[in-house]
């Protein structure tokens, strides 16, 4: 059996599975809806997501335990994930295949040569991991086994000389420990920026599915919009397009996950190797070498993605997959540059802390999905995968732009104008979908009282407050029970001024002059105010006749001028009840910049954002 066929089946299987798990990301029980599909599975088997959140939080959250299995399999077989599983790898491989199909043998060999810049990905990994470790949230790391692990790593690194891997890990762990004591830096988890699974997840969630949705299949009613979708498209597009000229460009030069696998593969048991040191150097094996790992020369195990093309193409059948004698070629990480990358990454945390958005100048527009942890801890968990954004049934969760600070790019933020409604009272989807618990899973009861912000009425824009027009759409749509929006009755006089009365009879009040807009005062909101300050509802009118409701009060005598008033119900928000769902903001007839807007004031996740002293007894800070 040609193992390359098996590999291709495997790649197609996982790509299809990945796309399927993205496609079912709509809330519901239909066969192509969420049901119980393990839609986070690819993120959970991704050891970089596991390592990143472990470094930044000190915990390995639930499903991340899957990634341990992948690490162990890598220890057995090398970078099988890159060549056999990774959907971005598969896309690049297809592009690369198409790109070099027409090239000559020499041309094919030329594009698959190892390049020193392939070390770049290790430095990227080092910087990202160091930044994550610098976050100083290491409550769980103070116990003895952890210290032992650090010492063992450093000792192995010292005695083994190879050291790049162990020294790197040791350094990071040591830093983690120091940072834990000093707590100087907030979470700076940015691995999601470049992790291929997060990248693909964003691409499919924010770009592919919204384009397919409604056109080919119907997933969500109405269109879906995602801010900065073009950027996700550009990143994946560039990776794939570059692969046409340089096969697996992203895997070779950029991918931090590939770098992590490369490091682990240094200890792999099974590897590809050449039987004889001396081969004919025909270099045919390099014509389709996906990893540019020099199979004809030194066989860089850390670069090999197990495409097995070399094995199949060697005319002398010299290449084997097995347990090689001797050690794999170590990665030369150029210790200084590695150190530089680590320092850069470590510095990124404290530098990002300097952003005033992290503390006093927090952006009140940043309304996070319900269940989000407090901002620092949220950032130390969110990997920007976009799962919450995609699952949100109302499209109100959007990827953040850079206006909330660089470190918050693509993290979820509520945009009540973009959504089809506000945050639904009975929906707990985002927390139950978040692979890292940056949004913790809520129960329905907690969800209904959890505040993500507070609605504020803008008196200058609100129709009943500013323009004497009846409205209260916000009050009607408030889903909280009892309603968080109440109304205050206010009578406002029309510009007509006092109107002289000519006669009062059974039909109603006849005015001296024809000044009334015919039939326009019959909406039930208009009142006739008599000289004695009696308010009588207008039932109908012509230009000079007012038909009034009979309230048992004497109609005004003819000499008293009357005035016309409109009865307004002006909305007032009760901050104790308002949970910040934003449905009022979405429904507000003032569409462009709504007259009622939710900001993060009083959100449950931050005690310091509290607005009121009387806390509900639920104990939410």
């Amino acid at each position, binding site marked *: 059996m040609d193992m390359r066929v098996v590999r291709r089946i495997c790649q197609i299987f996982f790509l299809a599975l990945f796309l399927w798990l993205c496609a079912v990301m709509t809330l519901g029980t239909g066969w192509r809806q969420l049901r119980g599909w393990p839609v986070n599975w690819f993120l959970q088997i991704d050891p970089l997501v*596991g390592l990143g959140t*472990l470094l930044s939080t*000190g*915990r*390995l*959250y*639930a499903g*991340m*335990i899957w*990634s*341990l299995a992948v*690490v*162990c399999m890598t*220890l*057995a077989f090398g970078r099988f994930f890159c060549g056999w599983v990774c959907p971005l790898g598969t896309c690049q491989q297809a592009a690369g295949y198409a790109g070099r199909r027409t090239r000559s043998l020499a041309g094919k060999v030329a594009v698959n040569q190892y390049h020193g810049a392939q070390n770049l990905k290790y430095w990227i990994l080092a910087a990202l991991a160091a930044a994550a470790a610098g976050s100083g949230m290491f409550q*769980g790391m103070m116990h003895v*086994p*952890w210290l032992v*692990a650090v010492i*063992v790593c450093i000792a192995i690194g010292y005695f083994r000389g190879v050291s790049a891997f162990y020294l790197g890990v040791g350094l990071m762990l040591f830093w983690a420990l120091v940072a834990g004591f000093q707590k100087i830096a907030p979470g700076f988890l940015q691995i999601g920026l470049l992790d291929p699974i997060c990248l693909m997840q964003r691409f499919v969630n924010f770009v592919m599915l919204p384009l397919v949705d409604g056109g080919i299949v119907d997933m969500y009613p109405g269109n879906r919009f995602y801010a900065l979708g073009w950027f996700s498209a550009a990143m994946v597009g560039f990776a794939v397009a570059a692969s046409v000229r340089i096969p697996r460009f992203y895997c070779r030069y950029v991918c931090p996950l590939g770098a992590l696998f490369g490091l*682990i593969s240094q*200890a*792999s*048991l099974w590897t590809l*190797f*050449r*039987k*004889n*040191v001396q081969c004919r150097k025909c270099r045919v094996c390099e014509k389709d070498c996906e990893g540019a790992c020099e199979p004809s020369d030194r066989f860089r195990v850390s670069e090999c993605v197990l495409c097995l093309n070399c094995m199949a193409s060697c005319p002398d059948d010299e290449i084997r997959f*097995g*347990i*090689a*004698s*001797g050690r794999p070629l170590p990665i030369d990480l150029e210790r200084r540059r590695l150190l530089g990358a680590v320092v850069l990454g470590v510095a990124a945390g404290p530098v990002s802390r300097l952003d005033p958005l992290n503390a006093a100048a927090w952006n009140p527009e940043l309304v996070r999905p319900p269940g989000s*942890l407090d901002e620092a*801890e949220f950032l130390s968990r969110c990997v920007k995968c976009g799962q919450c954004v995609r699952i949100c049934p109302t499209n109100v969760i959007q990827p953040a732009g850079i206006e909330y600070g660089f470190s918050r790019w693509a993290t979820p933020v509520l945009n009540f104008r973009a959504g089809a409604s506000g945050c639904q009272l009975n929906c707990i989807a985002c927390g139950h979908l978040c692979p890292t*618990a940056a949004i*913790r*899973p809520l129960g329905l009861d*907690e969800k209904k009282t959890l505040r993500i912000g507070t609605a504020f009425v803008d008196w200058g824009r609100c129709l009943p407050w500013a323009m004497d027009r009846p409205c209260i759409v916000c009050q009607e749509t408030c889903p909280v029970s009892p309603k968080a929006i109440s109304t205050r009755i206010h009578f406002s006089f029309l510009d007509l001024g006092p109107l002289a009365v000519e006669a009062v009879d059974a039909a109603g009040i006849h005015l001296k002059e024809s000044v009334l807009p015919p039939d326009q005062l019959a909406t039930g909101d208009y009142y006739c105010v008599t000289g004695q300050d009696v308010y009588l509802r207008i039932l109908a009118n012509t230009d000079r006749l007012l038909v009034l409701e009979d309230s048992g009060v004497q109609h005004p005598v003819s000499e008293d001028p009357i005035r016309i008033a409109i009865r307004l119900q002006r909305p007032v928000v009760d901050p104790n009840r308002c949970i910040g769902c934003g449905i009022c903001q979405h429904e507000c007839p003032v569409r462009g910049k709504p007259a009622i807007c939710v900001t993060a004031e009083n959100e449950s996740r931050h*005690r*310091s954002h*509290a*607005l*009121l*002293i*009387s*806390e509900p007894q639920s*104990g*939410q*800070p």
Partner: protein
Amino acid sequence: MGPEDLISRRNFLARALQAGLTGTLVAGGGILFYDPDGPMPPVVQAVSLPDFSISGIKKQLCIVHGPDRKKSLRSAFQALGGMESFIRPKDRVLIKVNAAFATPPQLGATTHPELVSETVRMCIESGAAYVAVTDNPINDPQSCFELTGIGPAARQAGARVILPDPGAFAPLTVPNARLIRNWPVMVGPFEGITRVIGMAPVKDHHRSGASMTLKNWYGLLGGRRNIFHQDIHTIIQELSIMIRPSLVILDGVAAMVRNGPTGGSFSDLRRTDTLIVGTDPVAVDAVGASLLQRSLDQLPFLEKAEAAGAGTVNYESLNPIRITAG
């Protein structure tokens, strides 16, 4: 068949060991940090400060008339049986002053430095092993302690000045309280303390009516504490049971009768030439209220504090000692 084709048993074992060890390390580490439940909703902790009131002695109150703070203080404690009856040898004392504003001491918006230094000295004379002075001021802490003269006076007399730092605050919940629930309170300076003395001037306060020894505990609160101004009397009531001091000293030598709590002008002050020392902060403040010529109805927090069990507003029931000094 070349030599590399064969892998020696020793080599195989070494590589298998390496892979196995690394695998065990990774899996072990992963399981060690495994967190199946994820982050939990934050919970309210039932932390509270210990009771610093002196057990075994009955409540005492002394009202001293006289313009000289130092003399009044000395004679008050003499009348009460000496500082020794409150501070035992090896006691660790914390003095909570009012250093809220960076204004000179003459304006009466803050605790007078003379009183601070004299109290510190008397504590040390009584054998206190450690005396500290602290507050979480509204203005910049450093300048508040320096400009009010409290900082230099305390240091000179041999006390440590503790400025607030973020690590000193911990969420605290007053049992059965409505407002102080899981709220950051400056508990750091209280560590290892056995006696707590509250020291405040008599001041008009726009929101609460008067700021005296009870309102002075407000300075222990951290966070966005100004939201408590929405319900000032309740917060003072809760503060009165959050901390039960060993004794309080109320400085009514020059009472700020208007424009409080900042004052800013000498015309805001009135000579009342009174110093009150007592173990019942509610009674002490009730005496202070009379200096401001305010009734209990104008200062609801006093009766609220009494209802909460922090003391009595009927200070005559404590048989106050009235003396004149200097």
